[in-house]
C-alpha cells in the first residue's frame, strides 16, 4: 500500500465516521433525514450549497475544459455568478413557502403551488431522469481519481464500489446530516488543494501566470478567447443564461434550500458565493498548465489533465491528498443526489398511487430506495458508454424546463394553471430529448440564419417552446375556469 492510497483511505474512513456520527441524538423521520429538520445554520447551508457546486465535474471537468477547449471554459465562472444574483430573491421565497407548507422535496413545491399531485409525479420523473446521469458522472469521476491517484493499484471498478457502498451506508443512516459533515471536510480539502495546485504548477513550470498564458497563446493563437463561430460570444451568453436558470432547479439543491434555519442565510450567501466561486479560477489554471506539459490527451481524456500533471509533478503523498479531495467531491453531491432521488420516488411518485401509506412507511421506503438508486447508477456507470454524455447534457436542459412554472408560481397572482405548467414542462422536456438524441443544433435546424443566432445554445428552443405552450394552455384553461366560476355564480 503506497502512501497515496493510505491517505485516500484515511479520508474515506473519516468521512464515513463523520457521516454516521451525525445521526447521534436525532430521531430520523423524513424531515430530519432529507431536510435536516430545517435547522441548519449559515455555515452548513453555505457548505451544502457550495458542496453541490464543487463536484468532480469542477475538479476534473473544469481543468479538462481549460485543457481541451480554452477560452469557452470561462462560462463556468460566469453562470454561477449570475445564478447567485437570482438566488438572492428566489431562494428566500422558495424557503419561506416550503417552511409554511412543511415541504420535503422539489416536487412537493409544485404539488402544493399548483394543487396537483400528478404535476408532482411529472416533476419527479424529470428530476430523477436528470439526476441519474449526474450521479453516474460523479461515480465515473470518483473511479478515475482514485485509480489514478493510487497509481493504478485500485481499479476504477473497485474504487467506484467502495465509494458507492460508503455513501449508501451513511446516507441511509444519517441522511443530509451526514452530507453536511462530509461537506465540511471536503471544502477545507478542496480549497487548500486547488489553491496550491493552481498557484504552484504555473509558477513551477512557466515562472508565473502571464508567461504560462503567453506560451499557450504562442503555441495556439486564439485558444484563450471565445471563437468567431461555434463557441462564440452568442454561444457564451445563451449558455450562461440557460445554465444560470437551471442552477437551482436540481432536485437535490432544493433539499439544501429547505434545510436552512432562516432565509437570511441565502441573502448573505449571494454576497459571498461569487467570491468563493473564484476557486474555480485555480482549477482552470491547472488545466492550462497541463496543455504544454502533458500534451496529447484527446477528447474525454482531457479530464485526466489535472491528475496526470499532478502525478508528474509531485510525490505520492501529495497525490494522495489530491485523490482524497477528489473522492470527497464525488461523495458529497453523490449523497445529496441519492437522497433527493429516493425522496422524490417515495413521496411524490409512490405515495400518489398509494395514498393510504403512512408517513413512517414512506420515510422507510425513501431510505430503502437509496441502495436501489445507487445500483441503477452503478449499472449505467459500468455499461453506459457514450450515451452517458448525451444523457448528462440533457440533465441540465431538463431541469431548466422547470424554471418558468416555478418562478411564475412565486407571484401573488400566478397566471400559469396546473394544466399550463404540465403541458409546458412536458413539451420542453420532449423537445430537449429530441434535440439531444438527434444531435441537432440551431445551425442544423435553421441553416440560413446569421452565425450569431446559429451559435445559440440549442436549449433555448426547448425553453421558448415551453413558455409558449405554458402561456397558451394556461390562457385556455383559465378562461374555462373563469367562465365556469361565473356561470356557477349566476346559478347561485
Amino acid at each position, binding site marked *: 500500500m503506497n502512501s497515496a492510497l493510505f491517505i485516500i483511505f484515511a479520508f474515506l474512513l473519516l468521512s464515513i465516521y463523520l457521516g454516521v456520527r451525525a445521526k447521534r441524538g436525532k430521531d430520523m423521520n423524513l424531515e430530519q433525514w432529507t431536510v435536516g429538520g430545517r435547522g441548519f445554520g449559515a455555515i452548513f447551508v453555505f457548505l451544502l450549497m457550495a458542496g453541490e457546486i464543487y463536484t468532480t465535474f469542477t475538479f476534473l471537468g473544469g481543468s479538462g475544459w481549460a485543457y481541451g477547449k480554452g*477560452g469557452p471554459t*470561462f462560462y463556468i*465562472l*460566469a453562470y454561477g*455568478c*449570475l445564478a*447567485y*444574483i437570482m438566488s*438572492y430573491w428566489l431562494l*428566500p421565497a422558495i424557503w*419561506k413557502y416550503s*417552511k409554511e407548507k412543511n415541504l420535503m422535496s422539489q416536487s412537493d413545491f409544485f404539488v402544493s403551488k399548483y394543487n396537483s399531485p400528478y404535476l408532482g409525479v411529472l416533476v419527479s420523473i424529470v428530476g430523477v431522469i436528470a439526476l441519474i446521469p449526474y450521479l453516474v458522472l460523479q461515480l465515473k469521476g470518483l473511479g478515475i481519481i482514485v485509480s489514478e491517484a493510487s497509481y493504478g493499484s485500485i481499479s476504477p471498478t473497485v474504487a467506484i464500489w467502495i465509494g458507492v457502498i460508503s455513501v449508501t451506508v451513511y446516507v441511509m443512516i444519517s441522511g443530509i446530516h451526514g452530507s453536511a459533515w462530509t461537506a465540511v471536510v471536503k471544502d477545507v480539502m478542496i480549497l487548500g488543494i486547488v489553491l496550491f495546485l493552481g498557484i504552484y504548477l504555473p509558477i513551477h513550470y512557466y515562472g*508565473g*501566470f*502571464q508567461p*504560462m*498564458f*503567453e506560451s499557450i*497563446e504562442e503555441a495556439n493563437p486564439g485558444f*484563450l*478567447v*471565445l471563437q468567431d463561430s461555434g463557441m462564440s*460570444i452568442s454561444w*457564451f*451568453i445563451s449558455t*450562461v443564461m440557460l445554465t444560470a436558470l437551471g442552477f437551482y432547479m436540481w432536485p437535490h439543491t432544493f433539499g439544501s434550500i429547505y434545510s436552512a*434555519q*432562516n*432565509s*437570511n442565510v441565502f*441573502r*448573505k450567501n*449571494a*454576497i*459571498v458565493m*461569487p*467570491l468563493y*466561486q*473564484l476557486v474555480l*479560477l485555480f482549477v*482552470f489554471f491547472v488545466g492550462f498548465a497541463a496543455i504544454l506539459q502533458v500534451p496529447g490527451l484527446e477528447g474525454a481524456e482531457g479530464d485526466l489533465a489535472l491528475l496526470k500533471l499532478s502525478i508528474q509533478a509531485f510525490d505520492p503523498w501529495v497525490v494522495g491528498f489530491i485523490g482524497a479531495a477528489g473522492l470527497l467531491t464525488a461523495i458529497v453531491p453523490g449523497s445529496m443526489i441519492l437522497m433527493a432521488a429516493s425522496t422524490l420516488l417515495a413521496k411524490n411518485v409512490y405515495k400518489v398511487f398509494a395514498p393510504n401509506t403512512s408517513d413512517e412507511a414512506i420515510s422507510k421506503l425513501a431510505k430503502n430506495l437509496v441502495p436501489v438508486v445507487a445500483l441503477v447508477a452503478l449499472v449505467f456507470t459500468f455499461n453506459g458508454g457514450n450515451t452517458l454524455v448525451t444523457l448528462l447534457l440533457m440533465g441540465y436542459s431538463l431541469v431548466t424546463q422547470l424554471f418558468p412554472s416555478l418562478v411564475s408560481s412565486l407571484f401573488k397572482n400566478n397566471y400559469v394553471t396546473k394544466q399550463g405548467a404540465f403541458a409546458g414542462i412536458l413539451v420542453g422536456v420532449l423537445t430537449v430529448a429530441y434535440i439531444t438524441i438527434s444531435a441537432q443544433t440551431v445551425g442544423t435546424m435553421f441553416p440560413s440564419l446569421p452565425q450569431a443566432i446559429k451559435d445559440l445554445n440549442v436549449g433555448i428552443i426547448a425553453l421558448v417552446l415551453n413558455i409558449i405552450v405554458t402561456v397558451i394552455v394556461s390562457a385556455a384553461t383559465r378562461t374555462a375556469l373563469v367562465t365556469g366560476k361565473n356561470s356557477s355564480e349566476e346559478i347561485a
Partner: protein
Amino acid sequence: MKIQHLLAFIPFIGLFGGLSFANKVTPYVLGMPFILFWIVLWVVLTSGIMAMVYKLDPAAGKEETE
C-alpha cells in the same frame, strides 16, 4: 421597481455587454488574458453589488424563522 432590483441587472449588462470588446488576450491583467480578467472583474463586482443590495433591502438582516 426599486433601486436594489435595478442594481441586480448591472452585472448581466456589464458582463455580457462588454464581451465583444473584451474578447481578446492582450493586455494581460494580473497575469490573466483580458477576457478572463473581464469575467473575474465582474464576479468580484457582483459580490460588491450584492452587498449593496443587502444594505438597501429592508427584508435583509432579519432572521426570519416564520
